[in-house]
């Protein structure tokens, strides 16, 4: 009954979305307030209906109602409760439900919080947003209906892929989708702006908080996925340049560019046409990501539940919205007044540089990701483009970006003083080089460029500290003034500082773990030990053990350092009951200097020895901590902006001061 209720709510949501697409749009064109005003309740009721449908599906999962085909195919009665819930979005149909739910959530949020928008703008934005929801709801109901019943119902379900039964992966899709789908708001605003012909600083001010929110969630979503791959897949790596990873990374790169170009548009009324284009492209890349992940056109390690036939439908949605958006852009861009040009050495100059490099890097990732598809279409030749390609193209483009990053926020708008800023950054440059020397002395091996990589990350971090010190006049003003300035510094400033600091920390982690990883593959018998990165790992044997829905062979390694016991690591090989699938669980000893990471392989024929793969991954946790800091920075910045969103232009002066 609840399932039919959910199905009904889903169909009703489709009708509401259709209504919301047409009526407010017509209203906005005719300047008819009555027609425009329906957008708000429609957006909210669309969200409520989808939430009801989603809860109904979740209820079917939680109660293990195997008469629902989707539940039978993807759940199992013995699965722990957390994974019964996360199992809702651990499959194709459910993840599309999550997608439309978040789409509607953003629409409802604009309806509720967008009070400062001009009525025609708001109605048009909500109409465009509803048209996206309409396309995806049609997709769900026509090809991927999660509410279909089975008769007779099976006694139990097929279960969820055991590698998805993991806490980090339970929360990874909601965060990732909030990011992906959040860019739909920027898209809707861009389309509305093109239709309305209104593109100005105010537009950028409306769009930025939504873009920032989407960006934050995408950042943390990607980081969670990477963290999961690191400890769950047992390969010791954290990023594989796999098509599915790239699919999430491209919207992130474009979204980061969008955040920065919208800043120029807001403060200097420049880059307007460019920002609109970026908004369209960012969401298009999100749609392309959905297509790549859902269709399985590219061979990927991470794609789940792919179906080429459904992929074609998503391709259609992507072509419709990207093509439509770009066609509209081509038609209207000519009529827009291009903003003024400006000095290359200025804050806006560095932001243009940022955009240039971020967009170029997005393009290289796009080329590397799609090239196999294009080549196979043209010549039938099958190739793969692996990590070396991306390291050779993406890496060098990031270097100038990171070098320029600390200069940007320190340069003034309009006309910057490069020499003065360089003098302020002397401390950061010297500090970074010192750290590089320390890294070189500590590791004393690895690629000769690696210490410079560490220095680059440290430069970005210390640059953020320098910016903070400059803004609060640390050392240049009496202490009470410094404290006053530190407390009065706007939250958006703190957000930027933190996010940039997080980027630097992440770079340090990436360079450290890539350049200085230590790896051993060997056969170990009980009692034998392995010396790795200053630790001694003694293998003490393997025991069978039972979990809630799996059995495992669990190994134990006594880890000691300098003779004293640190901990015991217990990597294992699991065999899940439903579906009957083996997984490898890693044993990890994490520390600030790096992770000791052990997985076990096959038992040696006729003996109690095991193949063992052990790594030391230096500084690896800084990668995810860096991402977390970026997320927090985004949140702090957003909390500032929310206060201003209500009354953006009350006093022109106040806004300018706050933005400094």
């Amino acid at each position, binding site marked *: 009954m609840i399932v039919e209720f959910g199905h009904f709510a889903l169909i009703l949501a489709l009708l509401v979305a259709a209504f919301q697409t047409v009526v407010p749009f017509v209203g906005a064109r005719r300047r008819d307030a009555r027609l425009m005003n329906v957008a708000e309740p429609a957006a909210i009721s669309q969200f409520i209906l989808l939430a009801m449908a989603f809860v109904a599906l979740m209820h079917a999962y939680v109660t293990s109602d195997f008469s629902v085909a989707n539940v039978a195919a993807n759940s199992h009665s013995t699965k722990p409760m957390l994974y019964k819930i996360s199992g809702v979005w651990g499959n194709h149909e459910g993840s599309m439900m999550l997608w439309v739910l978040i789409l509607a959530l953003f629409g409802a949020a604009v309806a509720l919080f967008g009070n400062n928008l001009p009525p025609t703008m708001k109605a048009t934005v909500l109409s465009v947003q509803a048209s996206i929801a309409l396309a995806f709801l049609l997709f769900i109901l026509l090809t991927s209906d999660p509410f279909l019943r089975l008769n007779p119902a099976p006694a139990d379900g097929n279960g969820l*892929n055991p590698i998805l039964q993991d806490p980090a992966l339970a929360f990874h899709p909601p965060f990732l989708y909030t990011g992906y789908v959040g860019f739909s708001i920027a898209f809707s605003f861009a389309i509305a702006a093109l239709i309305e012909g209104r593109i100005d600083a105010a537009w950028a001010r409306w769009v930025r908080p939504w873009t920032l929110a989407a960006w934050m969630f995408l950042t943390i979503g990607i980081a969670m996925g990477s963290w999961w791959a690191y400890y769950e*897949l047992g390969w010791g790596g954290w990023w594989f340049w796999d098509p599915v990873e790239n699919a999430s990374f491209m919207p992130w790169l474009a979204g980061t560019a969008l955040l920065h170009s919208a800043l120029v548009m807001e403060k200097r009324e420049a880059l307007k046409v460019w920002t609109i284009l970026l908004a369209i492209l960012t969401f298009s890349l999100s749609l392309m990501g959905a297509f790549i992940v859902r269709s399985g056109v590219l061979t990927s390690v991470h794609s789940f539940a792919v179906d080429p036939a459904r992929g074609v439908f998503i391709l259609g949605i992507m072509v419709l919205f990207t093509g439509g958006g770009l066609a509209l852009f081509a038609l209207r861009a000519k009529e827009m007044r291009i903003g003024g040009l400006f000095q290359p050495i200025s804050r806006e100059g560095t932001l243009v540089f940022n955009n240039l490099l971020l967009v170029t890097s997005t393009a290289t990732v796009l080329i590397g990701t799609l090239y196999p598809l294009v080549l196979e279409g043209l010549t039938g030749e099958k190739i793969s483009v692996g990590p070396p390609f991306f390291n050779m193209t993406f890496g060098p483009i990031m270097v100038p970006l990171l070098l320029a990053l600390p200069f940007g926020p320190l340069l003034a708008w309009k006309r910057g003083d490069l020499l003065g800023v360089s003098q302020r950054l002397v401390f950061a440059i010297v500090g970074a080089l010192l750290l590089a020397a320390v890294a070189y002395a500590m590791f004393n091996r690895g690629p000769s460029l690696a210490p410079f990589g560490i220095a680059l990350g440290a430069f970005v971090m210390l640059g953020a500290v320098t910016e903070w010190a400059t803004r609060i006049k640390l050392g240049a003003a009496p202490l009470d003034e410094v404290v006053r300035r530190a407390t009065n510094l706007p939250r958006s400033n703190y957000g930027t500082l933190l996010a940039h600091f997080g980027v630097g920390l992440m770079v340090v982690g990436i360079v450290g773990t890539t350049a200085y990883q230590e790896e051993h593959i060997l056969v170990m018998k009980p009692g034998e030990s392995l010396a790795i990165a200053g630790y001694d790992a003694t293998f003490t044997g393997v025991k069978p053990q039972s979990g809630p829905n799996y059995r495992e062979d669990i190994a134990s390694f006594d880890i000691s350092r300098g003779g004293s016991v640190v901990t015991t690591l217990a990597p294992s090989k699991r065999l899940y009951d439903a579906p009957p699938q083996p997984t490898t669980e890693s044993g990890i000893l994490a520390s600030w200097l790096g992770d000791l990471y052990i997985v076990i392989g096959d038992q040696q024929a006729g003996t109690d020895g095991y193949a063992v793969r052990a790594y030391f991954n230096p500084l690896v946790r800084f990668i995810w901590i860096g991402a977390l800091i970026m997320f927090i920075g985004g949140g702090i910045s957003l909390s500032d902006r929310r206060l201003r969103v209500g009354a953006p232009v009350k006093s022109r002066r106040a806004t300018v001061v706050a933005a400094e």
Partner: protein
Amino acid sequence: MTRKQKRGVMIGAGVATLALAAILVLFAMKDSIVFFHTPSDIAEKHIPAGQRIRLGGLVADGSVQRGQGTTVTFKVTDTLKDIPVAFTGVLPDLFREGQGVVAEGKLDANGVFVADSVLAKHDENYMPAEVKKSLEERGVKLGNSAHPEGATKP
């Protein structure tokens, strides 16, 4: 700076960045692209030893030699030709005989394919697209029992 100079700087920076990126992409394409072959392709095309390729097919029944030190050997087949493969490391969880697999590495002088990664896939109902297509082109019938998954050695 005059308006013209400013525009010049902007356009110059843009063109320079794009040119640099294009050069990087072309170089990387030349050096780091890996072609995909089936065992029959390798027999027909005489792939030289030492060239990096991807080998795809099914893990031949009865060919997997596990538990002999850290190197696992098996054969990859497209039912017409077999290629022996040696892989040092921990194999993917879902690696099983009779199922699809993609390995990346080089042929050695004796015709043994020395893999440094066995392609990763963690959905049990999945068959790498290249393997499926190649096998179908050669008329090999596939059931629903393809379970490739993977491990890689950096």
